[in-house]
């Protein structure tokens, strides 16, 4: 009986949301009907899931087509575009750290939290979103994690259980692949020394901590540096490496949809907030805000989390996550925010990165990359 009620309520809410959206365009009647929303996102399985859970339903509800462009993160492009006054995107799907950096550089429009829809039970958005989700220029829509995945067949009779195993090529021999950025790698390197997660960024703020971390990463033999998010999956699939860092969503896609013999090591996962942000000088900022309201509703968040295992940023949405619509996999176990996966989860310190990334990057380049150019990303 309760289930029926629940379903009824969801249907009603859906209708209500639909109605709101239908009514919305009339407010902006002077908007040309053919105007399309141009979204900059990350491509791959992530974009496919967004297409199915967010973009298509948005077009269906409002008639506004959504065009998607791809990027690999970074705000250099945005900085250039804003400076030239020629911004090609209305909405950017960016990590919170980059959104904060961009916001500080005045590259983004402020986003008031009033534009967000309340939870289905009426809880105001401010209380429904997780801590740190609502920022001046960005709104967190999901939590993803950078994790290590390993080939199940690489270490007969053994399984890596701790992030320290990433650096232990004695017990877990074989090539590794890591992202060509200081972020995440430095955190894992220090974790492998037994540093508690609460102290990671304090210690990384010292030269001693950085050298310890670089030393650990430098000790890896046969290391591939990757840049694009789908590279680690490919390297694992082609057996080029036995352990690789990567986004949990991509690994999930490879495991479930492509039956790749890999497994995720959740220990030491580094969680990041993925946000929506509207660049300055965007052509259609109003449509972008309408989309944000639509896409961050509990229903749409839960729909996205059923397709790709990113933790919703709303408490009400997390409760609604169920099984994958096609494969029937219980998605709750695969989202980074599930209690089983969060025992030693680090939340990436955006403020720290926002204000120190140039220096950290320089140290990283000097310490690790100069002599490794040749073994870089293929």
């Amino acid at each position, binding site marked *: 009986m309760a289930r029926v009620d629940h379903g009824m309520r969801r249907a009603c809410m859906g209708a209500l949301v639909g109605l709101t959206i239908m009514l919305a365009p009339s407010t902006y009647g002077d908007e040309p009907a053919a105007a399309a929303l141009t979204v900059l996102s990350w491509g791959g399985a992530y974009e496919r899931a967004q297409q199915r859970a967010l973009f298509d339903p948005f077009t269906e509800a409002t008639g506004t087509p959504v065009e998607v462009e791809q990027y690999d993160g970074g705000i250099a492009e945005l900085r250039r575009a804003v400076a030239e006054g020629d911004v090609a995107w209305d909405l950017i799907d960016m990590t919170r750290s980059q959104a904060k950096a961009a916001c500080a550089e005045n590259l983004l429009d402020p986003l008031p939290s009033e534009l967000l829809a309340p939870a289905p039970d009426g809880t105001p958005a401010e209380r429904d979103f997780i801590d740190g989700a609502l920022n001046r220029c960005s709104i967190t829509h999901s939590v993803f994690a950078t994790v290590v995945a390993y080939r199940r067949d690489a270490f007969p009779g053994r399984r890596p259980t701790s992030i*320290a195993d990433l650096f232990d090529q004695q017990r877990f021999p074989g090539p590794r692949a890591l992202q060509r950025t200081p972020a995440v790698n430095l955190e894992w390197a220090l974790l492998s*020394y*037994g*540093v*508690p*997660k*609460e*102290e990671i*960024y*304090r*210690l*990384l*703020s*010292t030269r*001693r*901590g950085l050298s*310890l971390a670089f*030393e650990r990463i430098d000790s890896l033999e046969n290391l591939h540096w990757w840049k694009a998010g789908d590279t680690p999956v490919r390297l694992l699939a082609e057996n080029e490496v036995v352990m690789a860092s990567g986004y949990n969503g991509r690994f999930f896609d490879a495991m479930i949809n492509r039956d790749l013999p890999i497994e995720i090591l959740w220990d030491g996962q580094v969680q990041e907030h993925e946000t929506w942000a509207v660049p300055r000088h965007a052509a259609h900022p109003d449509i972008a805000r309408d989309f944000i309201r639509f896409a961050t509703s509990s229903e749409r968040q839960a729909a996205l989390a059923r397709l790709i295992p990113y933790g919703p940023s709303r408490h009400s949405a997390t409760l609604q996550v169920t099984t994958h619509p096609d494969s029937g996999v219980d998605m709750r176990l695969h989202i980074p925010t599930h209690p089983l996966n969060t025992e030693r989860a680090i939340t990436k310190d955006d*403020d*720290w990165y926002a*204000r*120190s990334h*140039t*220096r*950290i990057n320089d140290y990283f380049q000097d310490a690790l990359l100069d002599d490794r150019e040749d073994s870089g990303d293929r």
Partner: protein
Amino acid sequence: MLRFLGLVVLGALIGGLAALAAVGFVSAVLWLNDLLLISPRGRMMFAHPEALAIATVLVPALGGLVVGQLHRAIRERRPHTPADVIAAVQTRRGRLPARAGFLSAVSGLVSLGAGASVGQYGPLVHLGATLGSLGAKLLKLGRSDDNVTIACGVAAAIATAFHAPLAGIVFAHEVILRHYALRAFAPVAAAAIVGHVIATNVLSQGALFHVADTAVPQPWEFAAFIVIGGLGALVAGAYMHAILAVGRWAARLPVVPSLRPALAGAALGLVALWVPDILGMGQETLRFATIEGAFGGFELVIVLVLKLTATALCIGMGFGGGVFSPALVIGTLFGALCGTLIGDTGLAGDTFVFYAVCGMVAVTAPVIGAPLTSLLIVFELTGSYVLTTAALASVTLASPIAAQLFGRSLFDIQLANRGLDLSAGRGRALLQSARLKHLLSQDCVTLNPRDSIDDAVASLGHHGHGEAYLVDDKGRYHGSVTLADLEVMRGRGQGQRRVRDCPRTPRPVLGPEASVWSAMHQLQDVTGEAIAVVDDKADDAFLGVVYESSIARAYLQYSEELRREEHGTG
């Protein structure tokens, strides 16, 4: 019974207040450190290297300037420390001065915030104690209850700051109360629990040291831990004496006392440009010292010596702040050094962190005079029983050796230098600090030396006393005579002679500042009614007498109060 339960509730209340104060203090220090570019995090997030270098020197110097001015508002011209709390409790004086207490807390806050190499637990303990004493004062409670509420504040502060309620309870007993009574235990425990609950809900601080997988040391390594304990006692001694020596040296400096901390701050900042590890409490340094390979062996020696010197400089020159956190860092560095040396022999396994923790305990336990507390801190922070037993091995030698060579703790040495000797226990300290003044009686026969013996006998007979005191016109004391001697002279027909010709009984006299303890000792050599109290600084002015019976009564009364406080149950 009701009164006892009331005391427990009061303990919990004070615990809550002290814990909130501690939380506020700790958060404020962290905030200041980030803001003032002291914490590594703040420094890393700051983009301009030149400005950073200037701030490194300027911030501690200016902090020192502020601290120096603050101390001018305190009567003793120095921040109050746990030593003052110990003195107040051990002598049952209680009633910690609120104003000086809060000024000392602010001084500690500014010192820590500005990056002085001092600890935060000293100010926290003193702040908790001040709050406790204030509670007792407001409720007009007696001295025993005042002691208990002070202990409550202390326990809550430690429980909150370390997330270690057991260590808080034991610290209050081991260092502050120095006795164990159920009457005190229950309120102190209540305070510690409240502190712990508040800490776990408000402070999201990680464990001080985290031990991933506990390798078990080989049997012979326990012998090494014991030896580290012995050597650690020497490091602790060097640390304590460096602080005291800088204090003595600073007193001779031709610099106004209120400017000395600024001088120390500038010196600290200059050295920190080269070795930033010495700035502030050094939590990062402490963590690195538990990681094998984070420091080279030589580097450990340098940082250890510099940290020790920097702390001695900061505290000796008058910064506010504790000695515990720097001792933790110095001890851990020392332990890491031992671990590195033993690791170089290739005999030890994966037990580096054991050496670091053993060194830490071996240095801190003697400095604060609290071996059990140090052990419990290790236990509660690591939850590792193996690590605690290793620390136990180390503290076995550390504490007694340091106590033999240097004293029970830095606090005790400081108090002894100020004239309060706690080495023979509380009873003696209490009697030594109890003044005779209130026992002084004017109910005695005084005679002018020129009075005749007949008159003297008559006067004594009239007042019913057996002794008289000779006091001249100027009020000077000239010894005492007994009725028996006067009678002997009168019997010989010398009744018209002057009293001053009568043989005087050699009697010790007491000064106006004499303690009950010294009076009790004088009594052993005296047979008579009373002892004269004479101010030899005011030309032997006669102030009155103290009756033997009242000395004995006072002695019994103090002993009884102590007995009730220490052995009573409710």
